[in-house]
C-alpha cells in the first residue's frame, strides 16, 4: 500500500486516508485564455512513465492538499511538499537526481 507523509500535519498515512488529485503544477491561464491554453490546463497531461509530480489531499485527516513526487514505473516516493508552490522545491529535485527517498 502506498504510504505518503502529509507535510501539513506530519503524519505518515496510508493511501486509504488520501484522495488523489492528479498532476500537480498545472497552470490556469485565466479569463482571457485561448482554447489551446484551456485545453492544456483542463485535459492535456504529461502522464509520465517515471517521475510524476502529483496532488494529494489528506481527506480523512487534516483535509489539506499537498504535493508528492513519485515514480509511476517503480512506485518509489521521493518525497512530499507543501502545495503552495508553482514548482517542485530544490531539495525534492536533489533527491530525485540521487534516486533517494526523503
Amino acid at each position, binding site marked *: 500500500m502506498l504510504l505518503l507523509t502529509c507535510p501539513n500535519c506530519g503524519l505518515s498515512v496510508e493511501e486509504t486516508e488520501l484522495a488523489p488529485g492528479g*498532476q500537480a503544477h498545472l497552470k490556469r491561464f485565466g479569463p482571457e485564455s485561448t*482554447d489551446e491554453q484551456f485545453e492544456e490546463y483542463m*485535459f492535456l497531461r504529461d502522464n509520465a512513465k517515471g517521475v510524476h509530480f502529483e496532488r494529494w489531499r489528506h481527506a480523512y485527516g487534516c483535509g489539506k492538499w499537498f504535493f508528492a513526487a513519485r515514480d509511476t514505473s517503480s512506485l518509489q516516493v521521493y518525497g512530499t511538499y507543501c502545495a503552495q508552490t508553482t514548482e517542485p522545491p530544490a531539495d525534492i529535485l536533489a533527491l530525485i537526481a540521487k534516486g533517494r527517498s526523503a
Partner: protein
Amino acid sequence: MRRFSAFAIAREALRNHEGWGRTWARRPPGKRYDVIIVGAGGHGLATAYYLGKNHGITNVAILEKGWLGGGNTGRNTTIIRSNYLQDPSAAIYEKARSLYEGLSQELNYNIMFSPRGVIMLAQTHHEVRGYKRTAHANSLQGVTTEWIGPQRVKQLCPIMNIEGPRYPVLGGLWQARGGTARHDAVAWGYARACTDMGMDIIQKCEVTGIAQSGGKVTGVQTTQGDIACGKLGLVTAGHSGVLAQMAGFRLPLESVALQALVSEPIKPCMDVVVMANTVHGYMSQSDKGEMVIGGGTDGYNNYTQRGSFQHIEETLRALVETFPMISRLKMLRQWGGIVDVTGDRSPILSKTPVDGLFVNCGWGTGGFKAIPGSGWGMAELMAKGHSPLTAAFGMERFREGRFIDESVAAGVAH
C-alpha cells in the same frame, strides 16, 4: 494457413497432430512497410486485419514490446456489450458487438463468443432513471436493450440477493445479445489472419523513437533497428502517453491500474454477466467454472500493472452483499493492467499533429468489447483519412468542447 475444420481434425488425428504449424509467423523486421502498427494487442491486430481485408493494404508490420496479446487484451474480464448512451459510442460498440457474432467463422478461429446476456443492475433510484434513459436511447440507436424489473433480474440470475438491505436491486438494463468471448483467442485469431495476408508480427520489439521529416512521420526506431514506414498507428493503450511524447505531442489521458481476479472453479451457477456499477463490481462465470470478477480503477497514475489492495476488498465486499453464495469462495489469481483514461471516458481514434501518424487509445476500462469495431474504424481512418465510425472520436474534441460523455452513462467499471 491451414484451415481448421472437422476434416482437418480427423486428418491430424491420424498423424499425431504434426501438421498444424504455427498460428502466426515469426519473422525479423523488414526495412520498410506501408503501415506500421505499434502494439500487437486486440486493437492493433484488428486494425492491421481490416487494413488488409477492407482496404487491400497488406505491407504491414505490427510491432510489440512484449508478447502478443500480453497487455490489456490478456488482462480484461472479457465482457462484450454495446448499451452506451451517446450515439457515436453506441455506433462503434454495436459495430464491434455485431462483428463479434460472426468473428469465429470469419477468422476460422474459435473465439468462443458466448452471447449469454449482460445485466447492468440499478441499485439506486438515480440509476433506475439513468438506465431507463439509456434503454430509450438504445432503441433509437438500433441497439436492442430493455429495462427489466427486479423479479426478472432474479429469474435471469437466481444466485442474486435482490433484497438489499443496503443496495436492493431495483431493476436492470438487459442486453440479451451481450456476453463474453475468449480474450486471448481474439488476439490469436486476428494474428493468424494477419500472418495469412503476409503481414509481419514482430514481438519483443520496443519502439524507442519516432522518426519525422518536415512534420511527417517517416519511421520508427526500435530495439531491433530502424524501420521506415508510410503511415504509423499507435495502438498502445496504457503506454500511449509515452509514445505521444516520443512524437512530440501530449494526449488528454492518464494511465491508471485496473485489477481483476478469478475464484476457484465451481459448478455452473450463473449464465449471464452481471455488472453493479453503484457498488463497483462485476462478475461472470468462465467456461472453466471460475467466477471472473472486476472492479474499479485506482485513482493515481501508475505503470506497474499492480494495483491497490483496498480496491479488491471494496469490490468483493460489494459483490458478497449482492451474491451471498460467493462469500466462502477462495480467490485463485489476481492481476492488474494499465488503462488509459480520458476526461469523457470515451476513446480517441484520431489523426495527430504529425502527418501520417494516427492514434487509437483512451479505451480506458472498457476496450475489449470494442476490438473489432475499433479495428474496423481505425483501418478506415488510416487508409482513407476519414471514417464515419471514428469521426466523433478525434483528439481535438476536448479543445472544441464536443465531449462524448460516457462518464455518467458508463460511470465507473465498464
